[in-house]
Protein backbone atom coordinates (compact mmCIF):
# COMPACT_ATOMS: atom_id res chain seq x y z
CA UNK A 1 0.00 0.00 0.00
CA UNK A 2 1.40 3.31 -1.01
CA UNK A 3 0.77 5.84 1.75
CA UNK A 4 1.30 8.86 -0.49
CA UNK A 5 -1.95 8.15 -2.34
CA UNK A 6 -4.37 9.10 0.48
CA UNK A 7 -1.99 11.92 1.46
CA UNK A 8 -2.83 13.60 -1.83
CA UNK A 9 -6.33 14.15 -0.44
CA UNK A 10 -5.51 14.48 3.27
CA UNK A 11 -2.81 17.18 2.91
CA UNK A 12 -5.10 19.78 1.25
CA UNK A 13 -7.91 19.03 3.75
CA UNK A 14 -5.57 19.56 6.73
CA UNK A 15 -4.18 22.71 5.13
CA UNK A 16 -7.72 24.00 4.63
CA UNK A 17 -8.62 23.39 8.27
CA UNK A 18 -5.46 25.13 9.52
CA UNK A 19 -5.97 28.14 7.27
CA UNK A 20 -9.54 28.54 8.49
CA UNK A 21 -8.45 28.40 12.14
CA UNK A 22 -5.67 30.91 11.56
CA UNK A 23 -7.83 33.45 9.70
CA UNK A 24 -6.56 37.00 10.35
CA UNK A 25 -2.98 35.96 11.20
CA UNK A 26 -1.59 37.15 7.86
CA UNK A 27 2.02 35.97 8.04
CA UNK A 28 1.23 32.46 9.23
CA UNK A 29 -1.44 32.06 6.57
CA UNK A 30 0.94 33.11 3.82
CA UNK A 31 3.70 30.74 4.97
CA UNK A 32 1.49 27.71 5.47
CA UNK A 33 -0.45 28.30 2.24
CA UNK A 34 2.65 28.71 0.08
CA UNK A 35 4.47 25.74 1.63
CA UNK A 36 1.55 23.33 1.36
CA UNK A 37 0.59 24.58 -2.09
CA UNK A 38 4.15 23.72 -3.21
CA UNK A 39 3.68 20.23 -1.78
CA UNK A 40 0.53 19.70 -3.89
CA UNK A 41 2.15 19.16 -7.32
CA UNK A 42 5.08 17.32 -5.72
CA UNK A 43 3.02 14.51 -4.15
CA UNK A 44 1.83 12.87 -7.39
CA UNK A 45 5.37 12.95 -8.77
CA UNK A 46 6.71 11.14 -5.72
CA UNK A 47 3.93 8.57 -5.35
CA UNK A 48 4.17 5.09 -6.89
CA UNK A 49 1.44 3.61 -9.04
CA UNK A 50 -0.93 1.25 -7.29
CA UNK A 51 -4.15 0.74 -5.43
CA UNK A 52 -4.91 1.92 -1.93
CA UNK A 53 -7.52 0.14 0.19
CA UNK A 54 -8.85 2.32 3.01
CA UNK A 55 -8.72 0.39 6.28
CA UNK A 56 -6.40 -2.14 4.72
CA UNK A 57 -9.28 -4.43 3.67
CA UNK A 58 -7.90 -6.08 0.56
CA UNK A 59 -10.19 -8.33 -1.51
CA UNK A 60 -10.50 -11.86 -0.14
CA UNK A 61 -8.56 -13.27 -3.05
CA UNK A 62 -5.48 -11.41 -1.81
CA UNK A 63 -6.08 -12.21 1.84
CA UNK A 64 -5.74 -15.99 2.28
CA UNK A 65 -5.62 -15.95 6.10
CA UNK A 66 -9.14 -14.54 6.26
CA UNK A 67 -10.63 -16.40 3.33
CA UNK A 68 -9.57 -19.84 4.56
CA UNK A 69 -12.07 -19.64 7.42
CA UNK A 70 -15.02 -18.66 5.26
CA UNK A 71 -17.59 -20.98 3.70
CA UNK A 72 -17.33 -21.74 0.00
CA UNK A 73 -20.62 -19.89 -0.46
CA UNK A 74 -18.41 -16.80 -0.35
CA UNK A 75 -14.99 -17.95 -1.54
CA UNK A 76 -16.22 -20.02 -4.44
CA UNK A 77 -18.07 -17.20 -6.20
CA UNK A 78 -17.30 -13.74 -7.57
CA UNK A 79 -17.52 -12.38 -4.02
CA UNK A 80 -13.96 -13.53 -3.61
CA UNK A 81 -12.71 -10.84 -6.01
CA UNK A 82 -14.96 -8.00 -4.87
CA UNK A 83 -13.45 -5.00 -3.07
CA UNK A 84 -14.81 -4.55 0.47
CA UNK A 85 -13.00 -1.23 1.12
CA UNK A 86 -13.06 2.15 -0.61
CA UNK A 87 -10.34 1.83 -3.24
CA UNK A 88 -8.21 4.63 -4.65
CA UNK A 89 -6.45 3.82 -7.89
CA UNK A 90 -3.34 5.77 -8.91
CA UNK A 91 -2.07 5.03 -12.40
CA UNK A 92 -0.19 7.07 -15.02
CA UNK A 93 -3.22 9.10 -16.17
CA UNK A 94 -4.16 10.03 -12.60
CA UNK A 95 -0.55 11.11 -12.04
CA UNK A 96 -0.63 13.73 -14.80
CA UNK A 97 -4.17 14.90 -13.87
CA UNK A 98 -3.40 15.36 -10.15
CA UNK A 99 -0.11 17.05 -11.05
CA UNK A 100 -1.79 19.58 -13.35
CA UNK A 101 -4.55 20.21 -10.78
CA UNK A 102 -1.88 20.75 -8.13
CA UNK A 103 0.01 23.14 -10.41
CA UNK A 104 -3.08 25.23 -11.22
CA UNK A 105 -3.98 25.19 -7.51
CA UNK A 106 -0.49 26.30 -6.51
CA UNK A 107 -0.49 29.23 -8.93
CA UNK A 108 -4.08 30.24 -8.06
CA UNK A 109 -3.32 30.22 -4.30
CA UNK A 110 -0.07 32.08 -4.93
CA UNK A 111 -1.83 34.78 -6.98
CA UNK A 112 -4.68 35.16 -4.51
CA UNK A 113 -2.35 35.64 -1.53
CA UNK A 114 -0.68 38.63 -3.14
CA UNK A 115 -3.54 40.24 -5.01
CA UNK A 116 -5.90 40.75 -2.08
CA UNK A 117 -5.22 43.39 0.52
CA UNK A 118 -4.95 40.85 3.36
CA UNK A 119 -4.64 37.11 2.77
CA UNK A 120 -7.89 35.50 3.78
CA UNK A 121 -7.87 32.23 5.70
CA UNK A 122 -11.45 31.50 4.72
CA UNK A 123 -10.71 31.95 1.01
CA UNK A 124 -7.71 29.65 1.35
CA UNK A 125 -9.92 27.10 3.12
CA UNK A 126 -12.35 27.04 0.20
CA UNK A 127 -9.60 26.70 -2.38
CA UNK A 128 -7.79 23.86 -0.63
CA UNK A 129 -11.02 21.99 0.16
CA UNK A 130 -11.98 22.19 -3.51
CA UNK A 131 -8.56 20.90 -4.58
CA UNK A 132 -8.82 18.00 -2.09
CA UNK A 133 -12.32 17.13 -3.33
CA UNK A 134 -11.38 17.10 -7.02
CA UNK A 135 -8.20 15.09 -6.33
CA UNK A 136 -10.37 12.51 -4.58
CA UNK A 137 -12.81 12.48 -7.52
CA UNK A 138 -9.89 11.76 -9.87
CA UNK A 139 -8.43 8.98 -7.71
CA UNK A 140 -11.47 7.15 -6.44
CA UNK A 141 -12.72 3.81 -7.73
CA UNK A 142 -15.87 3.91 -5.59
CA UNK A 143 -18.84 5.68 -7.10
CA UNK A 144 -20.49 6.75 -3.83
CA UNK A 145 -17.20 8.23 -2.57
CA UNK A 146 -17.17 10.16 -5.85
CA UNK A 147 -20.66 11.55 -5.07
CA UNK A 148 -19.57 12.69 -1.58
CA UNK A 149 -16.55 14.57 -2.94
CA UNK A 150 -18.64 15.88 -5.86
CA UNK A 151 -20.91 17.60 -3.34
CA UNK A 152 -17.93 18.90 -1.37
CA UNK A 153 -16.48 20.36 -4.58
CA UNK A 154 -19.82 22.06 -5.32
CA UNK A 155 -19.90 23.54 -1.81
CA UNK A 156 -16.28 24.71 -2.15
CA UNK A 157 -17.13 26.37 -5.50
CA UNK A 158 -20.06 28.20 -3.90
CA UNK A 159 -17.80 29.15 -1.01
CA UNK A 160 -15.20 30.66 -3.35
CA UNK A 161 -17.93 32.75 -4.99
CA UNK A 162 -19.40 33.87 -1.65
CA UNK A 163 -16.05 34.96 -0.23
CA UNK A 164 -15.14 37.03 -3.33
CA UNK A 165 -16.74 40.40 -2.82
CA UNK A 166 -18.19 40.81 -6.31
CA UNK A 167 -21.57 42.46 -6.86
CA UNK A 168 -24.36 39.93 -7.29
CA UNK A 169 -22.39 36.94 -5.97
CA UNK A 170 -24.99 35.88 -3.38
CA UNK A 171 -27.77 35.61 -5.97
CA UNK A 172 -25.61 33.62 -8.37
CA UNK A 173 -24.43 31.31 -5.58
CA UNK A 174 -28.03 30.65 -4.53
CA UNK A 175 -29.09 29.87 -8.11
CA UNK A 176 -26.16 27.48 -8.48
CA UNK A 177 -27.05 25.70 -5.24
CA UNK A 178 -30.73 25.37 -6.15
CA UNK A 179 -29.91 23.85 -9.54
CA UNK A 180 -27.28 21.68 -7.89
CA UNK A 181 -29.70 20.41 -5.27
CA UNK A 182 -31.87 19.11 -8.08
CA UNK A 183 -29.08 17.57 -10.16
CA UNK A 184 -26.90 16.02 -7.45
CA UNK A 185 -29.66 13.95 -5.75
CA UNK A 186 -30.59 12.66 -9.20
CA UNK A 187 -26.95 11.55 -9.60
CA UNK A 188 -27.31 9.78 -6.25
CA UNK A 189 -30.53 8.18 -7.52
CA UNK A 190 -28.59 6.82 -10.51
CA UNK A 191 -25.97 5.44 -8.12
CA UNK A 192 -28.77 3.89 -6.03
CA UNK A 193 -30.16 2.18 -9.15
CA UNK A 194 -26.69 0.80 -9.95
CA UNK A 195 -26.43 -0.44 -6.36
CA UNK A 196 -29.84 -2.04 -6.59
CA UNK A 197 -29.07 -3.94 -9.77
CA UNK A 198 -25.45 -4.95 -9.18
CA UNK A 199 -25.20 -4.85 -5.38
CA UNK A 200 -21.93 -2.91 -5.54
CA UNK A 201 -20.60 0.59 -5.47
CA UNK A 202 -17.05 -0.25 -6.48
CA UNK A 203 -16.68 0.56 -10.18
CA UNK A 204 -14.31 -2.33 -10.97
CA UNK A 205 -16.77 -4.77 -9.39
CA UNK A 206 -19.75 -3.24 -11.25
CA UNK A 207 -17.91 -3.67 -14.56
CA UNK A 208 -17.01 -7.25 -13.60
CA UNK A 209 -20.67 -8.01 -12.87
CA UNK A 210 -21.81 -6.49 -16.16
CA UNK A 211 -19.17 -8.20 -18.30
CA UNK A 212 -19.42 -11.66 -16.75
CA UNK A 213 -23.16 -11.96 -16.93
CA UNK A 214 -23.90 -11.72 -13.23
CA UNK A 215 -26.54 -9.12 -14.14
CA UNK A 216 -28.32 -8.51 -17.44
CA UNK A 217 -26.57 -5.57 -19.20
CA UNK A 218 -29.71 -4.65 -21.16
CA UNK A 219 -31.78 -4.21 -18.00
CA UNK A 220 -33.87 -1.01 -18.42
CA UNK A 221 -33.04 -0.02 -14.82
CA UNK A 222 -29.38 0.19 -15.85
CA UNK A 223 -30.29 2.45 -18.76
CA UNK A 224 -32.19 4.75 -16.43
CA UNK A 225 -29.13 4.76 -14.12
CA UNK A 226 -26.95 5.76 -17.08
CA UNK A 227 -29.32 8.59 -17.95
CA UNK A 228 -29.37 9.95 -14.39
CA UNK A 229 -25.58 9.73 -14.01
CA UNK A 230 -25.19 11.56 -17.35
CA UNK A 231 -27.53 14.28 -16.01
CA UNK A 232 -25.43 14.67 -12.85
CA UNK A 233 -22.33 14.81 -15.08
CA UNK A 234 -23.88 17.66 -17.08
CA UNK A 235 -24.28 19.65 -13.85
CA UNK A 236 -20.82 18.98 -12.47
CA UNK A 237 -18.96 19.93 -15.62
CA UNK A 238 -21.05 22.88 -16.79
CA UNK A 239 -22.35 21.43 -20.06
CA UNK A 240 -25.68 22.68 -21.46
CA UNK A 241 -28.21 23.34 -19.87
CA UNK A 242 -25.94 24.34 -16.98
CA UNK A 243 -23.53 26.40 -19.08
CA UNK A 244 -25.12 29.76 -18.28
CA UNK A 245 -24.95 29.28 -14.51
CA UNK A 246 -21.38 27.96 -14.73
CA UNK A 247 -20.18 30.98 -16.71
CA UNK A 248 -22.07 33.24 -14.28
CA UNK A 249 -20.17 31.54 -11.42
CA UNK A 250 -16.85 32.19 -13.20
CA UNK A 251 -17.76 35.84 -13.62
CA UNK A 252 -18.75 36.37 -9.97
CA UNK A 253 -15.52 35.02 -8.47
CA UNK A 254 -12.14 36.70 -8.16
CA UNK A 255 -9.88 35.81 -11.12
CA UNK A 256 -7.69 33.42 -9.10
CA UNK A 257 -10.82 31.71 -7.77
CA UNK A 258 -12.30 31.52 -11.28
CA UNK A 259 -9.07 29.93 -12.58
CA UNK A 260 -9.38 27.25 -9.91
CA UNK A 261 -13.13 26.66 -10.38
CA UNK A 262 -12.71 26.08 -14.10
CA UNK A 263 -9.98 23.51 -13.36
CA UNK A 264 -12.47 21.79 -11.05
CA UNK A 265 -15.06 21.68 -13.84
CA UNK A 266 -12.59 20.24 -16.37
CA UNK A 267 -11.36 17.50 -14.04
CA UNK A 268 -14.86 16.56 -12.84
CA UNK A 269 -15.79 16.36 -16.55
CA UNK A 270 -13.06 13.86 -17.34
CA UNK A 271 -13.38 11.85 -14.13
CA UNK A 272 -17.11 11.28 -14.55
CA UNK A 273 -16.76 10.94 -18.33
CA UNK A 274 -14.18 8.17 -17.90
CA UNK A 275 -16.45 6.39 -15.41
CA UNK A 276 -19.46 6.61 -17.77
CA UNK A 277 -17.30 5.22 -20.58
CA UNK A 278 -15.96 2.40 -18.38
CA UNK A 279 -19.33 1.25 -17.11
CA UNK A 280 -21.67 2.01 -20.00
CA UNK A 281 -19.58 1.79 -23.16
CA UNK A 282 -21.36 -1.42 -24.19
CA UNK A 283 -24.34 0.83 -24.99
CA UNK A 284 -23.50 2.54 -28.31
CA UNK A 285 -26.19 5.04 -27.39
CA UNK A 286 -24.08 6.48 -24.56
CA UNK A 287 -21.35 7.51 -27.02
CA UNK A 288 -23.88 9.28 -29.22
CA UNK A 289 -25.18 11.19 -26.20
CA UNK A 290 -21.66 12.27 -25.19
CA UNK A 291 -20.96 13.40 -28.77
CA UNK A 292 -24.27 15.26 -29.02
CA UNK A 293 -23.91 17.08 -25.72
CA UNK A 294 -20.31 18.05 -26.51
CA UNK A 295 -21.28 19.41 -29.92
CA UNK A 296 -24.05 21.46 -28.31
CA UNK A 297 -21.62 22.73 -25.67
CA UNK A 298 -19.09 23.78 -28.31
CA UNK A 299 -21.63 25.60 -30.48
CA UNK A 300 -23.60 27.28 -27.69
CA UNK A 301 -20.52 28.16 -25.64
CA UNK A 302 -18.52 29.77 -28.41
CA UNK A 303 -21.44 31.62 -30.04
CA UNK A 304 -22.42 33.06 -26.66
CA UNK A 305 -18.79 34.01 -25.97
CA UNK A 306 -18.57 36.21 -29.07
CA UNK A 307 -21.49 38.40 -28.05
CA UNK A 308 -20.40 39.07 -24.45
CA UNK A 309 -19.12 42.45 -23.33
CA UNK A 310 -17.82 41.46 -19.90
CA UNK A 311 -14.34 39.85 -20.04
CA UNK A 312 -14.96 37.30 -17.33
CA UNK A 313 -18.20 36.06 -18.85
CA UNK A 314 -16.50 35.83 -22.22
CA UNK A 315 -13.71 33.65 -20.87
CA UNK A 316 -16.32 31.67 -18.94
CA UNK A 317 -18.29 30.85 -22.08
CA UNK A 318 -15.07 30.09 -23.98
CA UNK A 319 -14.16 27.64 -21.19
CA UNK A 320 -17.54 25.91 -21.64
CA UNK A 321 -16.99 25.76 -25.37
CA UNK A 322 -13.58 24.17 -25.01
CA UNK A 323 -15.12 21.49 -22.78
CA UNK A 324 -16.99 20.41 -25.87
CA UNK A 325 -13.72 19.55 -27.62
CA UNK A 326 -12.78 17.24 -24.74
CA UNK A 327 -16.17 15.54 -24.92
CA UNK A 328 -15.82 14.89 -28.65
CA UNK A 329 -12.50 13.17 -28.01
CA UNK A 330 -14.10 10.96 -25.34
CA UNK A 331 -17.19 10.30 -27.41
CA UNK A 332 -15.28 9.06 -30.46
CA UNK A 333 -14.38 5.90 -28.60
CA UNK A 334 -11.07 5.14 -30.33
CA UNK A 335 -7.81 5.02 -28.35
CA UNK A 336 -6.38 7.92 -30.35
CA UNK A 337 -9.55 9.95 -29.84
CA UNK A 338 -9.64 9.40 -26.09
CA UNK A 339 -5.94 10.28 -25.76
CA UNK A 340 -6.57 13.46 -27.75
CA UNK A 341 -9.58 14.36 -25.59
CA UNK A 342 -7.70 13.85 -22.33
CA UNK A 343 -4.70 15.83 -23.64
CA UNK A 344 -7.09 18.64 -24.61
CA UNK A 345 -8.46 18.55 -21.04
CA UNK A 346 -4.99 18.99 -19.54
CA UNK A 347 -4.27 21.86 -21.92
CA UNK A 348 -7.63 23.54 -21.32
CA UNK A 349 -7.19 23.57 -17.56
CA UNK A 350 -3.84 25.33 -17.96
CA UNK A 351 -4.82 27.76 -20.72
CA UNK A 352 -8.10 28.92 -19.17
CA UNK A 353 -6.38 29.46 -15.80
CA UNK A 354 -3.69 31.43 -17.68
CA UNK A 355 -6.39 33.59 -19.34
CA UNK A 356 -8.32 34.22 -16.12
CA UNK A 357 -5.22 35.28 -14.18
CA UNK A 358 -3.95 37.31 -17.15
CA UNK A 359 -7.14 39.27 -17.65
CA UNK A 360 -7.46 39.38 -13.88
CA UNK A 361 -4.53 41.80 -13.79
CA UNK A 362 -6.71 44.28 -15.69
CA UNK A 363 -9.40 43.86 -13.06
CA UNK A 364 -6.85 44.25 -10.29
CA UNK A 365 -5.71 47.57 -11.69
CA UNK A 366 -8.97 49.14 -12.80
CA UNK A 367 -11.79 47.22 -11.06
CA UNK A 368 -13.67 47.40 -14.38
CA UNK A 369 -14.45 44.34 -16.46
CA UNK A 370 -16.63 45.79 -19.23
CA UNK A 371 -14.78 45.80 -22.57
CA UNK A 372 -16.66 48.90 -23.66
CA UNK A 373 -15.08 50.93 -20.86
CA UNK A 374 -11.48 49.65 -20.99
CA UNK A 375 -8.51 50.46 -23.16
CA UNK A 376 -4.85 51.37 -23.29
CA UNK A 377 -3.59 48.69 -20.92
CA UNK A 378 -0.68 47.81 -23.21
CA UNK A 379 1.04 51.10 -22.54
CA UNK A 380 0.96 50.42 -18.80
CA UNK A 381 1.97 46.72 -18.78
CA UNK A 382 3.65 45.55 -21.98
CA UNK A 383 4.91 42.34 -20.35
CA UNK A 384 1.46 41.29 -19.18
CA UNK A 385 -0.01 42.20 -22.56
CA UNK A 386 2.49 39.93 -24.31
CA UNK A 387 1.76 37.06 -21.92
CA UNK A 388 -2.01 37.44 -22.35
CA UNK A 389 -1.56 37.51 -26.13
CA UNK A 390 0.33 34.20 -25.92
CA UNK A 391 -2.46 32.78 -23.75
CA UNK A 392 -5.03 33.72 -26.39
CA UNK A 393 -2.92 32.19 -29.14
CA UNK A 394 -2.68 29.05 -27.01
CA UNK A 395 -6.44 28.82 -26.59
CA UNK A 396 -7.11 29.25 -30.28
CA UNK A 397 -4.62 26.56 -31.24
CA UNK A 398 -1.71 28.45 -32.75
CA UNK A 399 1.47 26.36 -33.12
CA UNK A 400 3.84 25.69 -31.35
CA UNK A 401 1.66 26.00 -28.24
CA UNK A 402 -0.08 23.12 -26.52
CA UNK A 403 -3.68 23.41 -27.73
CA UNK A 404 -2.45 23.19 -31.34
CA UNK A 405 -1.14 19.68 -30.69
CA UNK A 406 -4.28 18.50 -28.92
CA UNK A 407 -6.69 20.04 -31.44
CA UNK A 408 -4.70 18.57 -34.31
CA UNK A 409 -4.91 15.15 -32.66
CA UNK A 410 -8.65 15.63 -32.15
CA UNK A 411 -9.25 16.54 -35.79
CA UNK A 412 -7.16 13.59 -36.98
CA UNK A 413 -9.00 11.27 -34.60
CA UNK A 414 -12.41 12.42 -35.81
CA UNK A 415 -11.41 11.93 -39.45
CA UNK A 416 -9.98 8.47 -38.69
CA UNK A 417 -13.16 7.49 -36.89
CA UNK A 418 -15.26 8.43 -39.93
CA UNK A 419 -16.66 11.80 -38.79
CA UNK A 420 -14.98 14.49 -40.90
CA UNK A 421 -17.88 16.86 -40.14
CA UNK A 422 -16.73 17.08 -36.54
CA UNK A 423 -13.28 18.06 -37.75
CA UNK A 424 -14.77 20.84 -39.88
CA UNK A 425 -16.82 22.17 -36.97
CA UNK A 426 -13.78 22.08 -34.67
CA UNK A 427 -11.68 24.09 -37.13
CA UNK A 428 -14.49 26.61 -37.66
CA UNK A 429 -15.00 27.13 -33.94
CA UNK A 430 -11.24 27.48 -33.34
CA UNK A 431 -11.15 30.31 -35.87
CA UNK A 432 -14.10 31.96 -34.13
CA UNK A 433 -12.40 31.51 -30.72
CA UNK A 434 -9.36 33.30 -32.07
CA UNK A 435 -11.55 36.13 -33.35
CA UNK A 436 -13.31 36.46 -30.00
CA UNK A 437 -10.05 36.62 -28.12
CA UNK A 438 -8.51 39.16 -30.49
CA UNK A 439 -11.63 41.35 -30.19
CA UNK A 440 -11.32 41.35 -26.39
CA UNK A 441 -7.54 41.85 -26.53
CA UNK A 442 -7.92 44.82 -28.86
CA UNK A 443 -10.60 46.36 -26.67
CA UNK A 444 -8.62 45.99 -23.47
CA UNK A 445 -4.99 46.41 -24.48
CA UNK A 446 -4.55 47.90 -27.92
CA UNK A 447 -6.97 50.78 -28.37
CA UNK A 448 -6.37 54.13 -26.67
CA UNK A 449 -7.33 54.59 -23.04
CA UNK A 450 -10.74 56.22 -22.50
CA UNK A 451 -10.55 59.45 -20.52
CA UNK A 452 -12.68 58.34 -17.59
CA UNK A 453 -10.75 55.15 -16.78
CA UNK A 454 -9.06 55.37 -13.38
CA UNK A 455 -6.45 53.10 -11.88
CA UNK A 456 -7.06 51.91 -8.35
CA UNK A 457 -3.83 49.91 -7.92
CA UNK A 458 -0.71 50.96 -9.80
CA UNK A 459 1.54 47.91 -9.81
CA UNK A 460 0.77 44.31 -10.56
CA UNK A 461 2.26 42.05 -7.87
CA UNK A 462 5.36 40.09 -8.90
CA UNK A 463 3.61 36.90 -7.84
CA UNK A 464 1.05 37.28 -10.63
CA UNK A 465 3.76 37.80 -13.25
CA UNK A 466 5.64 34.74 -11.99
CA UNK A 467 2.43 32.70 -12.20
CA UNK A 468 1.80 33.87 -15.78
CA UNK A 469 5.37 33.04 -16.82
CA UNK A 470 5.09 29.54 -15.31
CA UNK A 471 1.86 28.94 -17.26
CA UNK A 472 3.51 30.12 -20.46
CA UNK A 473 6.50 27.83 -19.95
CA UNK A 474 4.18 24.86 -19.41
CA UNK A 475 2.20 25.75 -22.55
CA UNK A 476 5.37 25.94 -24.65
CA UNK A 477 6.84 22.72 -23.22
CA UNK A 478 3.62 20.76 -23.82
CA UNK A 479 3.36 22.27 -27.28
CA UNK A 480 6.87 21.30 -28.35
CA UNK A 481 6.91 17.88 -26.62
CA UNK A 482 3.34 16.53 -26.55
CA UNK A 483 4.57 13.00 -25.92
CA UNK A 484 5.49 14.12 -22.38
CA UNK A 485 1.76 14.14 -21.63
CA UNK A 486 0.34 11.63 -24.11
CA UNK A 487 2.67 8.87 -22.93
CA UNK A 488 0.95 9.07 -19.54
CA UNK A 489 -2.53 9.08 -21.07
CA UNK A 490 -2.15 6.26 -23.59
CA UNK A 491 -2.49 3.25 -21.21
CA UNK A 492 -5.84 4.53 -19.90
CA UNK A 493 -7.08 5.41 -23.39
CA UNK A 494 -6.15 1.99 -24.79
CA UNK A 495 -7.92 0.17 -21.97
CA UNK A 496 -11.03 2.35 -22.33
CA UNK A 497 -11.23 1.89 -26.09
CA UNK A 498 -10.63 -1.85 -25.88
CA UNK A 499 -13.57 -2.24 -23.54
CA UNK A 500 -11.49 -3.68 -20.76
CA UNK A 501 -11.64 -2.15 -17.28
Amino acid at each position, binding site marked *: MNLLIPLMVIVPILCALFLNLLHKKDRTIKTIAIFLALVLPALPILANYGLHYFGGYAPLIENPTLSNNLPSLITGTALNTFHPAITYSFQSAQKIFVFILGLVGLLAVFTSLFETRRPSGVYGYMMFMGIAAVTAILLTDDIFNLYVFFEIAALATVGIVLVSNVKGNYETALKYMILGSIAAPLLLLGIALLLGVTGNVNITDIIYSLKNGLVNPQNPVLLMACGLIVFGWLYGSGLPPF*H*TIKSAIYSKALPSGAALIQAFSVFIFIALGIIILRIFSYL*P*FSQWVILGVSLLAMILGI*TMAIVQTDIKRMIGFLAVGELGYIGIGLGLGTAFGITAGLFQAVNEAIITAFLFIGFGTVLYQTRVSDTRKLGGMMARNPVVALLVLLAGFAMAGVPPLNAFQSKLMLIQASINAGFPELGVIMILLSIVTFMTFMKAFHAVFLRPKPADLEFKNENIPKATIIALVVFMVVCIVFGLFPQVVTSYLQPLATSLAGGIV
Partner: protein
Amino acid sequence: MNLYDLIVKKIKDIQGAGDDAAITNMSTSSMLTAEITLISSILVALVMLRMVSKILMIVAVLVVLLAALVAMPLMPRFKNEQNDSMAAMMFYVMLALAIVITLFYWGNLNV
Protein backbone atom coordinates in the same frame (compact mmCIF):
# COMPACT_ATOMS: atom_id res chain seq x y z
CA MET B 1 -43.73 35.59 -13.68
CA ASN B 2 -44.25 31.92 -13.17
CA LEU B 3 -43.14 29.11 -15.44
CA TYR B 4 -46.38 28.79 -17.42
CA ASP B 5 -46.48 32.45 -18.41
CA LEU B 6 -42.83 32.23 -19.33
CA ILE B 7 -43.50 29.34 -21.70
CA VAL B 8 -46.38 31.21 -23.37
CA LYS B 9 -44.33 34.37 -23.71
CA LYS B 10 -41.47 32.37 -25.22
CA ILE B 11 -43.67 30.80 -27.86
CA LYS B 12 -45.11 34.22 -28.77
CA ASP B 13 -41.59 35.65 -29.02
CA ILE B 14 -40.43 32.88 -31.32
CA GLN B 15 -43.41 33.41 -33.58
CA GLY B 16 -43.32 37.18 -33.66
CA ALA B 17 -40.57 39.51 -34.82
CA GLY B 18 -37.81 40.11 -32.31
CA ASP B 19 -37.44 43.43 -30.55
CA ASP B 20 -35.41 45.90 -32.60
CA ALA B 21 -32.99 47.17 -30.00
CA ALA B 22 -30.25 49.42 -31.34
CA ILE B 23 -26.90 47.65 -31.62
CA THR B 24 -23.59 49.54 -31.75
CA ASN B 25 -20.85 48.84 -34.28
CA MET B 26 -18.80 46.59 -32.04
CA SER B 27 -21.82 44.46 -31.19
CA THR B 28 -22.94 44.25 -34.80
CA SER B 29 -19.81 42.48 -35.94
CA SER B 30 -20.06 40.04 -33.02
CA MET B 31 -23.73 39.32 -33.72
CA LEU B 32 -23.02 38.73 -37.42
CA THR B 33 -20.11 36.40 -36.66
CA ALA B 34 -22.16 34.53 -34.10
CA GLU B 35 -25.06 34.21 -36.56
CA ILE B 36 -22.87 32.80 -39.34
CA THR B 37 -21.06 30.46 -36.94
CA LEU B 38 -24.30 29.14 -35.48
CA ILE B 39 -26.00 28.46 -38.81
CA SER B 40 -22.94 26.90 -40.45
CA SER B 41 -22.10 24.64 -37.49
CA ILE B 42 -25.68 23.38 -37.27
CA LEU B 43 -25.74 22.66 -41.01
CA VAL B 44 -22.40 20.81 -40.93
CA ALA B 45 -23.53 18.85 -37.87
CA LEU B 46 -26.71 17.85 -39.72
CA VAL B 47 -24.58 16.38 -42.52
CA MET B 48 -23.67 13.68 -39.99
CA LEU B 49 -27.20 12.33 -40.46
CA ARG B 50 -25.85 10.66 -43.62
CA MET B 51 -25.16 7.64 -41.43
CA VAL B 52 -28.85 7.20 -40.69
CA SER B 53 -30.20 7.77 -44.19
CA LYS B 54 -28.98 10.01 -47.01
CA ILE B 55 -32.44 11.24 -47.96
CA LEU B 56 -33.14 12.27 -44.37
CA MET B 57 -29.91 14.26 -44.39
CA ILE B 58 -30.78 16.16 -47.56
CA VAL B 59 -34.29 16.93 -46.34
CA ALA B 60 -33.07 18.02 -42.89
CA VAL B 61 -30.36 20.30 -44.29
CA LEU B 62 -32.78 21.98 -46.71
CA VAL B 63 -35.49 22.42 -44.08
CA VAL B 64 -33.13 23.86 -41.47
CA LEU B 65 -31.51 26.15 -44.05
CA LEU B 66 -34.89 27.54 -45.12
CA ALA B 67 -36.08 27.91 -41.53
CA ALA B 68 -32.90 29.75 -40.58
CA LEU B 69 -33.17 32.09 -43.56
CA VAL B 70 -36.79 32.89 -42.73
CA ALA B 71 -36.18 33.54 -39.03
CA MET B 72 -32.89 35.23 -39.80
CA PRO B 73 -31.77 37.29 -36.80
CA LEU B 74 -31.37 34.15 -34.69
CA MET B 75 -28.55 35.34 -32.46
CA PRO B 76 -30.35 38.12 -30.52
CA ARG B 77 -33.06 35.62 -29.62
CA PHE B 78 -30.53 33.00 -28.57
CA LYS B 79 -28.72 35.56 -26.47
CA ASN B 80 -31.94 36.64 -24.72
CA GLU B 81 -32.86 33.03 -24.06
CA GLN B 82 -29.66 32.14 -22.31
CA ASN B 83 -29.97 34.74 -19.61
CA ASP B 84 -29.31 34.41 -15.92
CA SER B 85 -32.85 34.33 -14.61
CA MET B 86 -33.86 31.41 -12.41
CA ALA B 87 -37.07 30.67 -14.28
CA ALA B 88 -35.36 30.36 -17.69
CA MET B 89 -32.58 28.17 -16.33
CA MET B 90 -35.05 25.96 -14.45
CA PHE B 91 -37.11 25.52 -17.64
CA TYR B 92 -34.09 24.32 -19.61
CA VAL B 93 -32.94 22.04 -16.79
CA MET B 94 -36.37 20.36 -16.63
CA LEU B 95 -36.41 20.07 -20.42
CA ALA B 96 -32.95 18.49 -20.44
CA LEU B 97 -33.93 16.08 -17.65
CA ALA B 98 -37.03 15.01 -19.58
CA ILE B 99 -35.05 14.55 -22.81
CA VAL B 100 -32.23 12.59 -21.14
CA ILE B 101 -34.59 10.23 -19.32
CA THR B 102 -36.83 9.66 -22.34
CA LEU B 103 -33.90 9.12 -24.70
CA PHE B 104 -32.19 6.64 -22.40
CA TYR B 105 -35.31 4.73 -21.55
CA TRP B 106 -36.60 4.39 -25.11
CA GLY B 107 -33.26 4.65 -26.90
CA ASN B 108 -32.23 1.09 -26.18
CA LEU B 109 -35.00 -0.18 -28.42
CA ASN B 110 -33.31 1.12 -31.54
CA VAL B 111 -29.61 0.88 -30.87
